[in-house]
């Protein structure tokens, strides 16, 4: 990225460079996994100087496609043509050599290494035995130019999610990326960072770079992309130019009939009962790196209402949710559930007394992907004490698979063979079943495609309305907060800075409180 581009205003309207040769072409790329054809004869041309969005529902094959391009997966059939030459990529190092760099939604950089160590690993120009400090200067200079403040000697585990993603981008730049593969790399960043990122992407493309962008946020893709390709069940459902792309067209290509169900209207408001189910009083909780992440939070959830907690990532929501679930020690204050002080009680107590829990990063914290669906359900203490009654649990699992339309060959399939959306459905189905009283959730629809996310929200809200269950849902996605909540609490720097009834809340005001 050249320095003079810094003050050039990002134009979101630059036309795709017509008449150019594609920098990357895929011909007949096919990849099979046990039980699915993830990519089924994909043909695709990607042109230099464009932002090319890759859209599709969960399990459509987007990640598989970019992993093939990054040399992680070897295709079963087909050809990759880079700069006009058929190329075999057998490792990411090969791809990096061709100027292709991937950044994915979960940071690849390694926690126990320093920033500089992580970055130098891909830099060919340094030989194996140079001291890592050799690269410090370059990192400092380049990060200044890009406008990221980062200490090259810091160990990565001390960084926040956002900082890690920034390091990933910095790394891509330092590797001299010509083609940037972004697999939901931006989706979970706070709004401000996200905007900076999109500007950066635009600029990168305007200067001749190429970006392949995967996201579930269709509007964002329409904003920034020059071309859009929609995948469906491993096949190309259609290519669109930015001029012809409309949200309806894209959704129809992505979801088919299901696109009719997509709506961002508020779901029906609950009529809570006066009884308080959850009460948090002046709660203080430590963060991971010392210091209080939650600073004197007090809140209340009534029976049969959804309290949404809005906030930018890293403002203490995670710690608050974990403290409520008794997964993190409380330093000061009290938590009262159903009239009982649970400040010193265990997670187990909550889990056998009607509390459902959907953690952040569900594939990491909420399911065990090596185990089968049925085992992932049976693990909860309400279902398995002493001897397990498999017949009963199998029955329940089959019921949930049907009810939640979980796509799986059988209840005994290991969860790792399901697509991201279906993994999430397994978790939500399980937790809603045990949440007879309270559901505690953090980003419950993260990583889900629009149609599935809205479906999950509907299911949660229906349950709240029908069974008078309460819910406390923290989310970084304001669309989600507005759609599902009855009341909205805004969290900023560990404190609750405002509580609003959802039907009267103003979006601008809440956004303002979030970043204040």
């Amino acid at each position, binding site marked *: 990225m050249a320095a003079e581009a810094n003050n050039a205003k990002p134009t979101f309207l630059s036309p795709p460079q017509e008449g150019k040769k594609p920098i990357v072409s895929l011909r007949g790329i096919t990849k099979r*996994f*046990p039980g699915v054809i993830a990519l089924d004869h994909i043909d695709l041309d990607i042109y230099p100087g464009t932002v090319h969005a890759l859209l599709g529902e969960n399990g459509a094959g987007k990640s598989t496609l970019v992993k093939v391009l990054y040399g992680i997966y070897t295709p079963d059939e087909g050809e990759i043509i880079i700069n006009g030459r058929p190329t*075999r990529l057998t490792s990411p190092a090969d791809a990096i050599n061709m100027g292709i760099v991937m950044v994915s939604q979960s940071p690849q950089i390694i926690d126990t290494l320093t920033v500089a160590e992580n970055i130098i690993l891909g830099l060919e120009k340094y030989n194996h035995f140079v001291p890592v400090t050799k690269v410090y200067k370059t990192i400092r200079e380049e990060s200044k130019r890009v406008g990221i403040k980062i200490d090259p000697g810091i160990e990565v585990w001390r960084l926040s999610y956002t900082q890690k993603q920034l390091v990933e981008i910095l790394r891509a730049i330092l590797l001299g990326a010509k083609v940037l593969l972004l697999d939901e790399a931006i989706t979970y960043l706070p709004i401000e960072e996200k905007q900076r990122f999109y500007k950066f992407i635009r600029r990168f493309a305007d200067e001749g770079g190429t970006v392949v962008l995967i996201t579930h946020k269709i509007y964002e893709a329409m904003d920034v992309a020059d071309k859009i390709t929609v995948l469906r069940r491993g096949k190309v459902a259609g290519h669109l130019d930015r001029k012809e792309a409309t949200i309806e067209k894209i959704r129809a290509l992505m979801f088919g009939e299901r696109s009719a169900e997509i709506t961002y209207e508020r779901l029906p408001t609950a009529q809570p009962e006066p009884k308080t189910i959850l009460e948090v009083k002046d709660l203080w909780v430590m963060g991971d790196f010392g210091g209080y992440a939650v600073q004197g939070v007090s809140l209340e959830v009534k029976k049969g209402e959804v309290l949404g907690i809005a906030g930018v990532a890293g403002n203490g929501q995670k710690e608050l949710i974990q403290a409520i679930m008794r997964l993190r020690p409380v330093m000061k204050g009290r938590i009262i559930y159903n009239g009982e002080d649970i400040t010193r009680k265990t997670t187990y*107590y909550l889990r056998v007394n009607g509390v459902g829990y959907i953690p952040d990063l569900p594939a990491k914290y909420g399911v*065990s992907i090596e185990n089968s669906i049925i085992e992932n359900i049976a*693990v909860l203490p309400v279902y*398995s004490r002493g*001897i*397990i009654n498999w017949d009963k649990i199998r029955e329940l699992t089959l019921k949930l698979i049907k009810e939640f339309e979980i796509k799986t060959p059988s209840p005994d399939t290991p969860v790792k063979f399901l697509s991201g959306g279906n993994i999430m459905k397994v978790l939500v189905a399980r937790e809603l079943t045990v949440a007879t009283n309270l559901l505690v959730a953090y980003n419950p629809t993260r990583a889900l495609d629009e149609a599935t996310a809205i479906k999950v929200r509907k299911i949660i809200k229906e349950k709240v309305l029908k069974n008078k269950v309460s819910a406390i849902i923290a989310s970084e996605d304001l669309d989600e907060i507005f759609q599902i909540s009855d009341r909205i609490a805004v969290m900023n720097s560990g404190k609750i800075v405002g509580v609003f009834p959802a039907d009267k809340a103003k979006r601008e005001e809440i956004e303002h409180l979030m970043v204040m």
Partner: protein
Amino acid sequence: MVIVRRVKPLPYWIIPIIALLAGIAISVIILYVLMGASPAAVLSAIVYGFTRPGVVAKTFVALTIVGIALLVSFKGSIWNIGGEGQITFGLMAATWVALFTALPYINPGLAQVSMILLAMVAGGIWALLAALPRAYLGLDEVPVTLIMNYIAYYIVDILVRGPWLGKHVYNYIRTDTIPAQVMFPQVPGTTMTWDGLFLLIILFVGVWYLLRNTSIGLRIRILGNNPNLLRSSGISVPLMIIVALTISGFIAGSVGALYLGGDVYRISYPVEAHTANYGYTGILVAWLSMLELIAVPIAAYIVSALYTAGIQYQILVGGHLGQLLTAGSAIVDVFIGSILLMYTILITISEYKIKIIVKR
């Protein structure tokens, strides 16, 4: 060269057979090159080993039980390398019952059962001692269980040299021989004992049931794959670590009793020089089974057949390398090593395929 997963695995029996044959071929070559061993003699020894269930029975029973024991903790990703120490502790407990209580003379049946049970308790306690720091301090269980093997040996050595030194041992340093009442009766025509056989069946069925049908079993399996899920489900991870490792030691301990009551009948000093090394060989059995309970006896049979084959070869060929070569153990080791290494490598082909990619 890249490796990809097969969409459909090959039929399960093809590869193991090819792998075994390849391994046998390699060990034949090694033995021929290094000591000029006749391939015909080696092969006939191997055939002998695999076709004499009665002879391999004793080793088979012990290795299956250790394999099952280790499987329980391995399923939970708790790498118990301490089977040897747990067996040694079991040996110690069983010896105590046999030599220093009146039980063998009062009720031999009860005495035998007590030997086995107490051996299990001792093995369990020894494993528990490693489990506690693992669970609460995060102390890596691999070095701890390994180191505790040696400590167990030396504790027993101290006993054998000291208070347990036998009265009728001439100049040997060893305990007295256990009373005939508690020498486990043999199954006719085999090298194994009835006690061992029953124990094997009980443990196999018990562990099968534990892993399949109980919440403890399910939680151990999930502990091995993703302890975070246990945490968020409200289940104590440290407790599950303790349970997995203790059960593992508990089962392994029983082999100490079998070794005493069905094999050596006394402890000789130093115990580390007189062990059958079941604790270590059992690790191999557990890993060869790919952590499938059903495959543990199969793996144990292969390993014990190879043992027998090595010893048989020694008998066939005699002291080829002079009197120096003791008990054919070197040949056993070459067999086991090369055949199982080939097996481990080739078995992957049933689920994965190798693609050669030519770069242009």
